[in-house]
Structures are given as structure tokens and as C-alpha cells.
């Protein structure tokens, strides 16, 4: 009896897993940005595929060696970003972009952090008033499905609900593109920005 029960439970679990996998897909592809040195750091996201709760969700942008890490941080709208100073000098964080409230978090020393919640879709440049060459981007998108391209422009987004969705891409040099893509199973897409 117990063996039968265990077998039934295992079968049900397997069926459930299969059912879940059947509704989600992996979107891969390549982004080509014209006129720039590298295809890296483009943000790709899928709109209309639903979102997740961002309550309590936090990601980190660090400041080290007079540089923001990472250079581009995509987040779902509603996510809180922690700006950590791991450098041996003070840093400041502000943005002139109104979609992010044109915030200025002030200046703080090593080991400290300040936070800001991006509650609207926005491509916000992050600057340091003390070190003008420092630059980063927070790209707040209305989607839980996003990725950043590598040096070759390649990206991968897992768990995307199947269906017809709008795939968008953006690069810090201001290039943008979007395409309607039918996502079923493993789907590949190529996007060209600018040119």
C-alpha cells in the first residue's frame, strides 16, 4: 500500500513538473548595436509575460575602484537598489532622470549603503558628484523576465511564459528596439539596435 502511495505521489509530482515546464520557455538570442565598440550591456526584457512580487526585493550596485559595479543593472519595477560603497574614498549617488525622481542620496564612506526604490519604468543614469567619470544605469522594466548581454551581445532569459510577447532591448548609448515574438519552447531572437 505504501509503495503504491509513494508511486502515485511520484507520478503526480512528475506530471506537475512536466505541466509547469510545458508553460515556460527559454529565450536566447543576440543583440547587435551599431556604431559602438561592444554589444555588451544591452538590456533585453519581455513585456506582457507577467511579473512577480517585488516586495522586499533588493539588488546591489557597488562602488569600488572609482567604478560602479555592475555598469548596467536591470530590475523589475518596484525593486529596491542598495548603493554600497566598498571604496576607500567617499562616494555620492544621484541621477538627473525625472522618471527616477531625480534623487540624490548624498555622500557616504566605505562600508555604508543607501537605498532607492525604482517604482516606475525608467532608464536612470547613476552618477557620482565627486567623481564625474563614474556612471552606471538602473533599467527598471515592467517585467520579471530580463537579462543583460555579454561582450558578444548574447543573452538568455529563463522561465518566460509561452505565448506572443513584445521583446524589447535598450543600450546605454540610447539605442532601442522591440519585436513581437512568439515564444514556445526554446526560442531564439536577434535584435539590432540603431543603424
Amino acid at each position: 500500500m505504501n509503495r503504491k502511495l509513494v508511486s502515485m505521489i511520484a507520478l503526480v509530482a512528475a506530471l506537475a513538473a512536466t505541466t509547469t515546464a510545458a508553460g515556460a520557455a527559454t529565450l536566447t538570442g543576440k543583440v547587435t548595436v551599431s556604431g559602438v565598440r561592444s554589444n555588451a550591456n544591452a538590456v533585453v526584457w519581455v513585456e506582457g509575460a507577467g511579473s512577480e512580487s517585488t516586495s522586499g526585493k533588493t539588488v546591489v550596485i557597488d562602488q569600488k575602484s572609482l567604478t560602479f559595479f555592475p555598469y548596467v543593472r536591470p530590475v523589475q519595477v518596484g525593486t529596491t537598489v542598495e548603493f554600497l560603497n566598498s571604496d576607500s574614498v567617499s562616494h555620492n549617488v544621484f541621477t538627473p532622470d525625472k522618471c527616477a525622481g531625480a534623487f540624490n542620496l548624498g555622500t557616504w564612506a566605505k562600508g555604508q549603503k543607501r537605498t532607492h526604490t525604482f517604482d516606475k519604468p525608467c532608464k536612470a543614469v547613476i552618477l557620482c558628484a565627486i567623481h564625474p567619470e563614474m556612471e552606471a544605469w538602473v533599467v527598471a522594466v515592467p517585467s520579471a523576465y530580463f537579462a543583460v548581454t555579454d561582450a558578444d551581445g548574447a543573452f538568455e532569459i529563463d522561465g518566460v511564459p509561452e505565448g506572443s510577447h513584445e521583446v524589447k532591448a535598450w543600450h546605454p548609448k540610447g539605442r532601442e528596439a522591440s519585436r513581437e515574438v512568439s515564444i514556445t519552447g526554446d526560442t531564439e531572437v536577434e535584435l539590432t539596435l540603431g543603424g
Partner: protein
Amino acid sequence: MRSIQLVRTAAILGLLLAMVLVTVTPATAIPAFARKYATSCQTCHIAYPKLNAYGEAFRLLGYRSPGETEDQVKQPPTALGSDAYKRVWPNAVWPTTIPSHVPIAVVSQFLVQSTNENDDFIFPSEVALVAAGTSGNNISYFGEIAFEQEAEDGTFDSEAGVEHIDVRFIRPIHNSLAFNLKVGAFQPELVQGFDHARRLTVANYDSMFAVQTLAVGGAAEVGGHGHGSAGGIALPAVARGFEAYGVVNHRFQWTAGLVNGLEPGQDTFDANDRKDTYGRVSYKWGGLAPDGSNADTYAGSAKNWRETSFELGGFGYFGDGSGIFVPAGGHEDEGHGGGSADEEHGSVMGSLALANTDPGEVAPAFLEPRDSTRYGLDFNLLYKDLNVFGAYLDAEDDLRAFAEEEGGGVGVPLPDESGTFSWTSWFLEADAVLKYPWLHGAVRYETVDLAAADAEDFERAVVSVTGLVRANVKTTLEYAWRLDDSEVENDDVLWLNLGIAF
């Protein structure tokens, strides 16, 4: 008028003097750009320093490629502030960039010069440090420090100094190339059609830059007699001041300049409180637009020196030498003082004045070049492997003569010795790529007519062959000979030049 005869004779001597002095070969090849873009000199040059159409557009755009994109620049610049700071201004300093590598290049020439009297190895004839580049999208700069040596009648003369240094504000208004501003000591756009610094030959365009109806004493150090501005009234090979210029509707170019004229003064950089002005307009038909705006659609030729185009320009230069009294001194044993101890310049006039003054008459001791005007036309024709270009100049100098007062200063005016001196000059040159892209020929005829109604007083022909050993190494064999009845020795010259830029 005798004074006109004196001036005419002096002008001839001044021209001959300048002809020897201005044969220093130009140095405006800029290998720093080869490094910046990781490209060969041949991208912009037919045979350095002569530019092709793309190189001309690159220069006019403030040393930027037409439609330049980030990936074309192989040496990423150093940012002086994130580009996003443009949105923070005026609450922050406007951001810009500087080259990540110091944009300096070395250009050197080695000249073998053979005349009737001497065979000289002028090694080097020039060593120059050339720097040029961009700062952000709207500022550019160019500078050159050079050491030059020249040979004249078996003696060497050398000088070193800053030849050019200028800052350019490119597209400062609404990002339009219609208006740009250049400040400093620069090669003026006035002479863009025959810029001495971008010529193929050793011989300069003496008919344009070396006609000296008047020479200022002590002017040898500034302006550089190696660049045609031998201290006197000539078209400026190097101008000091401000120049506005632009391209309208892609093909119409204009220039206006406000510059020091005769220079220097006793204690000032400009010998008087007046400035010279100039202007030029031109239009180009065919080929690559001067602003490179059709670079992405213009098919051009795989042989990047080729295009079919014609450009016509008109220019005017207006000099004001009021208050400048060129001394006639240099003959102290004859009781003539004067400010000039430099026989190459001021005392040419004085020598002739003394030699031609009848006993009892007051010789002109000073000349005031009150007004100098030059009007000219230039053209540039490109067809297949051939480039034919030239210029015509019509000039007039209003010269006022003065006696010397007791004590050596400027005395009373001598109206009978004053007058207006007119002259014309022109040149025609044909350059050609001789079958191979590394082999170039040039033939030039030029003449100066110091009195329009008389026979021509200066005629010269130049034949030149340049071979590019490498894109940055060239040799030139050139012969320049006088066609007029010149009585000056060493007036025919054979040059063998070796140049390298790195």
C-alpha cells in the same frame, strides 16, 4: 615714380630672399590620427601631407570622421565626466574627453640641396612635433613646434619655435557646421586652395606667400620666414588671431578672419593697433562634399585619391599698416640709423634708397604700408589621377614715405616719394598619381608681375616626383628653375628630400 621703382626692386630682392627661405617642406602630417583610428596615412592623404577629399572633410570637421561612430575610434578617449553630465549642466561642468594617448607625432625632413654654388646636406631640414586632436564633440586643437635649418649662400640659418597652435570650436551653435571658430596661430582657411602646409612639393607657392613689397626689420623670429611670412605684407601662411569659417548646404564654404598683420612691434606682438581682415568663399561641385555629409552614400573610388570635382574660390585680404614705419637702417657708417639691424629685412629698402638718392635730395628713411589689399581667385580640379589647381592674385600697396628726423626718428612725410604699388601673381600646378599609388608627380608654373604693363619679373617652373617608400616615409626629387632674366646666383635649385613621420 622713383619710389615705385625702389619698391619694385626691393620687392624682387625680397621675393628672391623669401624663395630660398620658404622652401622648408611642410610638416602637417599627423600620425597621431593613424594611431587613434588604427588606419594608414593613405586613408586621408594622397601622399602626406597632401590630403585627399576624405582627409579634407576630416580636417574641416575638426579632425573627426564624417559620421564618426564610437567603434571607429580604436583608442578610446579618457572621459572628463560622464556624458550624462550634459543633463546636469549648468549645475556641473560640461563633460568632455581627451585622448587616452598623448596625440603627438614626429615629422622630419632631410634635404639635399644643390645649386650652382653649393651642394648642401641639410640634415635635418626640419624636425617637428605635431599634436592634433579632439576634446569631446565640439573642440579640436592643432599645434606644431619645429626646428628648421636653411641654407643660403653657403651659410646655415636655423630657428626653433611654436609654428602653429590653435583651438577650434566646431559646431558650437545648434551642432551646425555653418559656423566654427578658430583661435590662435594657424594656417588660415583663406589659403585653403593652396595651403603651403599641405603641398606635395618642396618648393612653396612663392607667388602667393613670398612676395615682399615691404619687410619689417627684426621680424625674423615671429611668424617664421620658413613659412612665407617673412615679416612683411604677403598672404599669411600663418595667421595670428581669430577665424570664423563654415560650410553651408554641404558644399559652400566661407571664411572670415581678424588677425595681426605686420608683426612684431618693438614691445608688442602686433606692430600697430590695427588688425588685418580677410575673407574667402568657395563652392565645390561633384565628389565628396566638403563636410563629408555624403560619405555614406558617395561611392567614390577604390583609389581614394580619385574623384571628379571642381572647386572655385574667391578671396580678399585687407592689411592696415598705419602707424608702422619700416626703418631703412643698417648702414650706420653712412649716418643712417633706424630700427633695423637685420639686413635681410628692413635694410633692403634702406640700401636701395641710399643707392638711388641723388645728391641733395632727401632719401626716404621710412615707409608706412598704410593699406594693402589682395584679391584673388583659386580653383581645384580633380579628375581621375589628375589634380590641377591654381590661384591668381591681384595686389595693391599704398606706401607712404617719410624722411628721418634729427635723432633718428620718423621725420616729415615725403609725398613725392609716396604712391600706390600694384602687382599681380599667379600659379598653375598639375599633380598626378603616376600609375602606382606610391608614385606622384607635380609640375608647377608660377609668376609674379610687379608692374602689370611690363614683362614679368619673376617666373619659375618646378618639376617634382615623390615616391612613397612607405605610407609614412617619402622621397622627393625636385628641380626648380628660374625662367626670367634673373641675375641672382643660385636661382636654380635641385632638391632631394627624405621625409618620415611617426
